[in-house]
């Protein structure tokens, strides 16, 4: 019964993903530091940061952002649960968008000009990556014959053999989804001023901690999507999936450290062009196969 499986998966994801995501975030900071010739913080630094945030006073401008962020977290957990229990890829993509929407509402609720600006940019970001996510799912469906992520285990060959263009396009928008430079427009991890802080300008304490945890979970989920392309029958292929996902993640860190932030116009145009070319070509090819 996939319904029960989804619920179990959601609970499991809600426990495991923050731990994995936290470790990845710690590694991210160490790798970034090494790329910049620094030593970097301890591996568990993201955990220490969040623990500190949780202990902070409960201060808020609007009083509702905490509730919206909780909703965003719950939706993230559901999206992860749906995907990792082998459920529907499209559904997972839609539900994670819902989480993004609550994040946007949390930002808007403060009425801070900086947060509103960031939230506006976040809507542009979603608009930029959404077509490619959909086309990626369509290509997956055409190659695997199902939208169910669990369907890969009954394939004779990994989906990637038929979906290289779509995978490349997905890697492109993965940078937006992971909030990495050059596409960290709405809120950046390397914020030096309010405009760059954007959506999270007015968030503090527990609310900000929720944003961090949500980001950890999202990272795990998106890397799961990445790995899915390389998995087929047999558990050994799972290892290949994990290796590729980690490689993609390392690649994103490298991009993050080597490219300057672009304007939203450039992001929107490039992301849509990539979606049109990569997604379009891939779908045409799959149609004639």
């Amino acid at each position: 019964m996939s319904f029960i499986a989804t619920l179990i998966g959601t609970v499991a994801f809600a426990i495991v993903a923050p731990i994995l995501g936290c470790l990845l975030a710690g590694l991210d900071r160490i790798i970034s530091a090494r790329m910049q010739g620094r030593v970097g913080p301890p591996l568990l630094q993201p955990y220490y940061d969040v623990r500190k945030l949780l202990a902070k006073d409960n201060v808020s401008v609007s009083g509702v952002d905490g509730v919206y962020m909780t909703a965003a977290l719950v939706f993230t957990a559901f999206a992860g649960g749906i995907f990792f229990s082998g459920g529907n890829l499209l559904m997972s993509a839609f539900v994670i968008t819902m989480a993004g929407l609550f994040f946007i509402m949390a930002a808007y609720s403060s009425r801070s000009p900086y947060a509103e600006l960031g939230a506006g940019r976040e809507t542009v970001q979603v608009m930029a990556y959404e077509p490619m996510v959909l086309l990626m799912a369509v290509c997956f469906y055409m190659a695997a014959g199902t939208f169910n992520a669990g369907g890969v285990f009954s394939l004779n060959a990994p989906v990637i053999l038929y979906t290289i263009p779509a995978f490349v396009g997905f890697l492109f928008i993965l940078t937006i989804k992971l909030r990495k430079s050059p596409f960290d427009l709405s809120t950046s991890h390397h914020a030096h001023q309010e405009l760059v802080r954007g959506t999270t300008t007015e968030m503090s304490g527990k609310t900000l901690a929720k944003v961090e945890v949500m980001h950890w979970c999202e990272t795990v989920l998106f890397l799961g999507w990445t790995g899915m392309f390389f998995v087929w029958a047999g558990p050994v292929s799972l290892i290949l999936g994990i290796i590729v996902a980690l490689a993609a993640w390392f690649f994103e860190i490298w991009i993050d450290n080597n490219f300057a932030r672009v304007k939203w116009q450039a992001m929107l145009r490039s992301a849509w062009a990539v979606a049109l070319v990569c997604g379009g070509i891939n779908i045409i090819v799959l149609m004639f196969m």
Partner: protein
Amino acid sequence: MQLIGFLILFPLVVAALLLLVRGDGLRNAIVWISAVVIAAGSIMLAVQYLGAAWTGFVFSSQAIDLVACAIGVAISAVVIGFGVKYKNYLAVGLAIVQLVGDLIFEFGFAHGTHVEVGLYIDPLSVVMALIIGIIGSGICVYALGYMVDFQKHLDEHGEGLTDLQRKDRRPTFFSLMFLFLSAMFVIVFSNNMIWMFTGWEITTVCSFLLIAYTRTDEAVRNAFRQIIMNMLGGIAFLAALYFAVLNAGTLSFQDFILFGLGSPWLVAVPVCLLAFAGLTKAAQMPFHTWLLGAMVAPTPTSALLHSSTMVKAGVFLLIKLAPLFAVCMVPAQMVILVGGLTFMLCSFMAISQTNAKRVLAYSTIANLGLITACAGVATPEAIWAAILLVIFHAAAKSLLFLCVGTAEHHIGSRDIEDMDLLFERMPKLARLMMIGIMCMFIAPFGMLIAKWATLVSFVDSRQMALVLLLAFGSAATFMFWGKWLGKLAGIAGSPENVELDVHPSEWISIALMAALALIACLALPIMSKMLVEPYITSVFMQLGSDISVDNLWITSILAAFVFVVMFAGNRDSKAKRADVYLAGVSVDSDGRVYRNSLSGETTATSRNLYLDSIFGEGIVRRPGEILCAAIIIVAIIASGFVPPVL
């Protein structure tokens, strides 16, 4: 059968009655009672025929045929009268063409063609009857309170207007609303295509009169645009009737479809013409401007046109024609391409709009485009999605229009930028509006499930272009809904609550729409099984098999969660309140005023992104219109020559 007759005739009687009533009290009583009666009638009908397959009723009468013809003449006369008065000779010309065509058809051409089974009911007409009966009459109730405010505003601020424009024309207004409902019932229950055509034309002329309600120059101009576009569709419908008699020898809609399935090459032209009529009524590009122009009318009119009547008649006809689209390639491609393009381009244009009603109008057109494209694809999944889209759109869009109408009367603007702080100023209304917006575009609500089924059916039927149009179009919908939602979500201090004097009738109908949207989302699996699937099985003999019931239940649980978040006191009262950070010392945090570097006071302002340079009407509209018009023209010409199935 008696129930069907009642649903068609009762609103007619009410309409006649309302024309005579001038007092508010009596009108309120009549509208309330008849709205409840009509809603109850349609529910009874639904219960009686739940899940039943196509059932025809032997019913024909020479008298009714003559009445239908007389109505056709009257409609043409109304249009000619207005056309002469306002010197719009294009409308007069079209009306004369239609009048002549009508008379020749009735007394010469089709005189011998007789339809035994005049009325019918099938699961699709049950769904439509529920939408018309519940949502349509709910909007009539809403109009009671709204029109009081509307007339008051005219009386108080109408200095610059002529007497004609200031006149209290409410009896006509309410009468037309009910006439509209009756005509819609005629369309969804008539198997006799002449009767259906009559209902079709009544809705056209009703919306003409409703749009022109205020008699301002703009209203009259837009009303004429509406009537010209829809009369083109009407004439196409009439021409299709000629072909139906000529090629198929029948005017029974059911027989026509059955005949077409057997000999597609004989019906390609009439199907194309009927589809054209459907496209004009469903406001597809290049005919979308009439629906945009229609928003000059009082808000209940827009709500009625957008959610339960008029445009829904257009998509109803297209969905009915779906089995023929499956066998006739040319009209199917026309409908698919026009629908898909309209969905994407109108979603783009919605991004650049600040006027809330215009955003709603563009989103309606876009959604109708999606439904249209689904009808053209004509697989069981696509039709399943199309019907669900019709249902969700009706509930959510009427909710949104009613909310915007009420907000407009209380904050004095329909600009989204002015809806700042609505969450505090009109707390209940803002939450309902947010629910409406979410229902329109985001998981886990039904609209999205329908979109998903659409996507699956597009992929399965190898409609490559449609997949791309859908992918980019729905990304745009996120943008324009998301920023509106954000604007509503803003909270600062405790501004004055201005929703205390909203009319109870407005609250009740808004609550009704919200409840319907809610039920539709939460009970999605049940609704799909009881209302939609019977139609699919009755037409296609099989069900589409893509979306498992488990997924439907997951969405319905998530939807419930969202409702809880939105309504269960989502304010954290324990949180210490802080001033908003403005890069300077705050003077007034709620007003976003801060002390600037010269010790003066500066107010921070921010606007949403409207991306006019990319998605502005000036950029998108013209190419879209030309493209769609070209597709339609080529298709209509080609339908005469190209074999139906390649």
